[in-house]
């Protein structure tokens, strides 16, 4: 609360500088996280496939840490995700929201690495962290007349949203504690990229193609709406 009030009082310039500062911190955080986690995460669940993947990129020498480190890393990354997601909701400056989103998406990628879903983690980093979000930030900066515009919904709406979201949170927590999830014995073998590709063209051919059509429609629609400045 205090930090926000201060930022509001100190005017546009320092807010800008502050946002840049948190941006740098965010990038540093994500980069260090990636450096720390990307190798350890995949080795922690090293399976035959993962090992072959690592032999290809040449990090076979790393010793598997295992043990206590996994849960600690998991909870740390999960907490980062939650805090960053909260930050997206609470931040009032659109660029700060983007920064928080950057951290949230980056830590989701780390969660994937921790779960030994290497390919998914890499895709998450490339597509969301690397592509979509950078595009989003550029889009905001290039199109908006004042990129530091503040977004403040009315109090009544905030209270209503808080009540609904709180109820949902309670319901979800109850479910997570009471539900019995199906579990697989032992470690699920990692999936190679070749296997993924094969499945996309056989078992999951229809969703794959429909997703392609959907993306084409989104592109056509977006291009059309963006062009329509008459």
């Amino acid at each position, binding site marked *: 609360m205090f930090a926000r009030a201060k930022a509001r009082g100190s005017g546009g310039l320092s807010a800008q500088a502050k946002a840049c500062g948190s941006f740098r911190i965010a990038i540093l955080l994500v980069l260090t996280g990636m450096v720390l986690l990307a190798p350890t995460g995949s080795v922690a669940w090293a399976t035959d496939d993962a090992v072959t993947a690592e032999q290809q990129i040449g990090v076979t020498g790393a010793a598997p840490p295992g043990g206590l480190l996994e849960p600690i890393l998991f909870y740390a990354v999960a907490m980062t995700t939650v805090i960053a997601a909260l930050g997206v909701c609470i931040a009032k400056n659109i660029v700060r929201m983007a920064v928080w989103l950057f951290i949230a998406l980056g830590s989701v990628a780390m969660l994937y690495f921790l779960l030994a879903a290497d390919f998914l983690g890499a895709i998450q980093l490339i597509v969301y962290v690397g592509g979509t979000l950078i595009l989003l930030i550029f889009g905001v900066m290039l199109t908006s007349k004042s990129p530091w515009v503040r977004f403040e919904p009315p109090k009544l709406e905030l209270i209503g949203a808080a009540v609904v979201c709180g109820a949902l949170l309670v319901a979800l927590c*109850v479910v997570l504690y009471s539900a019995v999830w199906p579990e697989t014995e032992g470690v699920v073998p990692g999936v190679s990229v070749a296997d993924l590709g094969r499945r996309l063209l*056989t078992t999951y*051919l*229809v969703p794959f193609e429909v997703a392609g059509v*959907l993306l084409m429609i989104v592109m056509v*629609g977006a291009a059309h709406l963006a062009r329509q400045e008459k």
Partner: protein
Amino acid sequence: MNVEAYLVPLAPELILLIGACLALIVGVIKTPRQMQWVSPLALVVVLAALLATWRLGVPDGSQGPPGLWLTSLTFYTRCIALGVGLLIVLVNWHQPVAEERGEYMAMILFSLLGVLLTASANDLLVLFFAIELVSVPTYVLIALSREDSRASEAAVKYFFLGAMSAAILAYGLSFLYGAAGTTTLYAFDEGAAVSKLAFGAQMGSHALIGLLLVFVGLAFKVAAVPLHVYAADVYEGAASPVTGLLGFVPKFAGFVALVKIFGACNWELPNTVYWMLWVVAAATMTAGNVLALLQKNVKRILAYSSIAHTGYMLIGLLVGPVAGQGPMRDGVAALFFYVAVYGAMNLGAFALFAAFRTGGRPMETLDDLAGIAARAPLSALALAICVFSLMGLPPTAGFLGKLYIFSSAFSLDESHAFCGPLIVLAVIGVVNSAIGAAYYLRIVAAAYMRGEVDESIPTGGRPVRWGLALCSIPMIVLFAWPGGLANQARNATIVLHDSIRPVHARLTTTTDATEHQQQPAAFRPHQAPRRGAPGKPAAP
């Protein structure tokens, strides 16, 4: 794995896809001479897809690629979506400015493709993508439909809320996936599937919350309370022909998806869920009708009427297929019959507003309608038929639709846990139909009783008037001969009857309805609706 075995059963979908891409390509060329071929192209594509559907007949469930399951439900959905799609193309014939017609028609075709895929989806991923394939083109259509800031506002509003509902739907589906460990909806053999989860009182809390979130996500698509708030603004902002599409396409896809999900649960819902859906249905009917009474703009009136109709359809969904076969007893068959009729009659009402302009702008309010009967008697008659059908007055198919829905609730067996509350719900529906008559009569009265204030000019051209005629004439014809559509609606639910029959294997599909005459002992049907169903029972 045979390419032919994959592609041939999907001929209608592929024709729509290729046709939509062709329309997009023609849209890039942009010379006026090519542009006038876009609407006929779309018409031909839909006709070709209908022809392919007819040639393929009712799929037996054994064909098609993994992820899809082609059944009698697919056949019914194809027929209805493409049939009403034909009318949608006719009504939208001249709607957008010439340069944008290619994209516009392509979006209509893509949206129809989404409906077709929803009905065949047997995988949660396909279901999600298909629902999005229905929705995303409608966002674009609203923005393209007219060059007006209100249309852009409506499109943006619909897009943001739609994205939110898509997120909720995806979240719910992910819970179902987590509970079942697979994305398959119905399994053909011993494999895992969502339909093999324990439902009813033994339902796991993760599956339960997944089911609830999926319902919330889809409730947005069908415009059920409390996710109806967008409807009036969006319907008002979009051009009338698009509004006619919005009333049918997302609603139909949403209900088909709901039937598929509820079918996977065997209609064995915990009591709390039943009560929640009961409240949603009652609130949807009542809110729709009461709010419609307060409106002056006809598009807003029809928007709230659309919400009220969602409420009636939810009765059918809640009753489910447990009471027996045929639309008089099977709530889902009644729902399918009603949604098909609703698509045409709702589109017909909007088609009139597409066909005329008054005072230099499209017709919108009750005052604009004044005197239309004297100027264009046939169009006014078509409007009157459609509005009477929406009201549910006897010589129209809308009456039969309501009759089927309500009688399905009345024919529930007394051993059914929710027999009493569902009958109360049907009574609420009957009362609501009476309330609804008030605002429908205002539309007809404005057209027939009042003198002309401002000159209305026909603008829609011949195809739009054809569309209007083809929406209204079937309303009378279907009242006289409802058998064809009612039988198809009954056949569409055969799969569900298979799944609720404990004797049979879960997934024996068949095109032959006569094999399924015996009912399971647990769900004894009543031969006729009990306790005075509204009106005379017209057995199909």
